């Protein structure tokens, strides 16, 4: 479903991604782990289409060349990025935002737009699953949300937009153990044979809740080791140091 080959990304003359290759099939959950500065967030930003990177290589989603698309076109093609630091947008109501996003994606898919009433019902169902107070609908997007509330709002968006490929960038950062369980359950419930997920994380803890099919280690801008979920446990025990050493 997602095919990445020879992906490089350069920022201010510095090569952050350096020939990264990755294949993810439908229904699979992959985890990318790596130390700070390995290029994890750059990978998620480049895939979602954020400006500011000189990118070469090839990325396709369901055969569609992603790198030539604008961020909104990538979303329409089925890509979703759960942000590490979801942006506060004062003055834009969360409900208005969520419905606008859902309708934009539905329009692209040739589906009819959803009415305000239908949307409200759908949003409340999904919020209940994430133990989110419906009051969050009437607030500005992420404004004044705690770290955990923001992450839940990301998963809420993912559950509404039903992407083909979900990239979860450090979705576990800043969460206490209860919030982590709720967010992880939300992610787990979206696992589906039609959907692929790429979990980018620093710590293996999340992977105890959402068990990946494949784990990759990202060091110095490329994948230096791959394995099954036991690789995460190994990393927890020994850290990245042996890998970063051997990657050179």
């Amino acid at each position, binding site marked *: 479903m997602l095919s990445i080959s020879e992906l490089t990304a350069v920022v201010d003359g510095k090569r952050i991604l350096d020939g990264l290759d990755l294949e993810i099939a439908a229904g699979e959950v992959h985890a990318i782990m790596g130390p700070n500065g390995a290029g994890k967030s750059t990978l998620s930003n480049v895939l979602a289409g954020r*400006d500011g990177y000189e990118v070469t290589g090839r990325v396709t989603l369901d055969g569609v060349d992603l790198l030539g698309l604008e961020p*909104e076109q990538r979303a*329409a093609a089925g890509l*979703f990025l759960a942000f590490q630091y979801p942006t506060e*947008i004062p003055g*834009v109501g969360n409900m208005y*935002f969520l419905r606008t996003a859902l309708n*934009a994606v539905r329009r692209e898919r040739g589906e009819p737009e959803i009415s305000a009433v239908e949307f409200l019902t759908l949003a409340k169902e999904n919020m209940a699953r994430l133990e989110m107070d419906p009051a969050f609908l009437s607030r500005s*997007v992420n404004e004044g949300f705690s770290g955990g509330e923001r992450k839940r709002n990301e998963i809420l968006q993912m559950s509404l937009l039903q992407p083909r490929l979900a990239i979860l960038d450090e979705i576990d950062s800043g969460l206490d153990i209860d919030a982590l369980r709720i967010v992880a359950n939300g992610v787990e419930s979206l696992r589906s044979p039609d959907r692929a997920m790429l979990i980018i994380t620093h710590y293996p803890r999340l992977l105890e809740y959402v068990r990946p099919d494949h784990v990759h280690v990202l060091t110095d801008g490329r994948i230096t080791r791959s394995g099954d979920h036991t690789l995460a446990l190994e990393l927890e025990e020994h850290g990245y140091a042996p890998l970063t050493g051997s990657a050179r």
Partner: protein
Amino acid sequence: MSSDAALLERLAPTAGVGARAERGRAFFDAHGLPDPKAEAWRYTPVTEIRAALEHAVPAPSGSTSSTVADRPLIDALAGSHGGPRLVFVDGLFSAELSDVEATPGGLWIGDAEALRPRRAPGAPAPQDEPADGFHALNWAAGSDVAAVLVDADTHLDVPVHVVHLSTAGSTGSDGPDATAGADATVTHPRTVVRVGAGSTAAVIESFVGTGGPSITNSSTRVVAAEGATVTYHRVMSEPAEAIHVGRTGIEQAAHSRVAATSVITDGRIVRNAVDVVLGGDGARSDLSGLYLPTDHQRHDNVVTVDHAASHGTSTQRFKGIVDDHGRGSFSGHVIVRHGTIGTDAAQSNPNLVLTPTAQADTRPWLEIFADDVRCTHGATVGRLDDDALFYLRSRGIPTAQARAMLIAAFAAEVVDSVTPESLRDHLSTWLHTRTVEVSS
């Protein structure tokens, strides 16, 4: 003959009717139009306005307004807000487009002719002086007045709507050589709002046009008596080629509260001066504004609050959204008089600059001659937040729509505070249309 004298001769050929017109003429004779270098006119292109005035013609008098305007047109341009309405077409009162009959008790509205018999015989003539040359020209050349008079202890629950419509424009000067205001018609609308002691009233004043170059030189006076509560919304939405020099003078007695909003939705050169005098203790004035110059438009807001009495509170909150080659400016002047105590004055001017060629100017000017004062001011000039834009786009929202959402969010603080809902909706719809346009 000096150019000022020639201008007066051209725009006010007949000796003005009444003492106010005479005072205007005398002031203009003595001072002419403002010096373009004067502080208060720094961001207004006076020279360009003068050139436009020199080519302009006074609006034809006695035109039959019903042939060029009807009620659906007024509703479409200015909105319909459910209360009494005074409509002026090219500076002249239009009885057939106005609703003056069914006014609630304690409210009187009308034009100059209706107002004349209301003046008590032997009452002393007002002695006030024009604030500047444009104001003087308004007095000297204006032919009518919109009067909104509210008795003491009267509580009005629907707003009075005053509409000024410009219909006449140039014919045949649209070629590449046409200069702004060439053969434009010029009008000098004057509005007086007096709200009696302890009363509550709301007035919406709309300046609209049907197209073509026009020059509007307007003057509005709002007088709030002791303990009165007045809401005044001024919407300047003339066509893109229009020039408007407007002044709103607000006089507040003790414990009065005035909330005044100015929205400039269009116009090539628009100056919006708001001069407030807090003349009695414990008065409060909340002034807000929104302006959105685009193309090569200039929108200039010049706000002065004179704390002439103690325990006054004033807030100024003006927001600029500047696009293309537009230039938006805000000068916020606060004066705190010697001998007063307990003044609380706050001022803010956030600006959103949408292109590298757009320009926002902001200038706080605080003159404080008293000790016991709390005065704050803040101004920002920023671009659309790239992170917010990316976040919206990453959710599938097209760029133009995402930008429009962020621009509307920026303006929301001002738009959402507007009442009644009919006016808020009118402004939201305009803003939406406008922001989607600028973003695409």
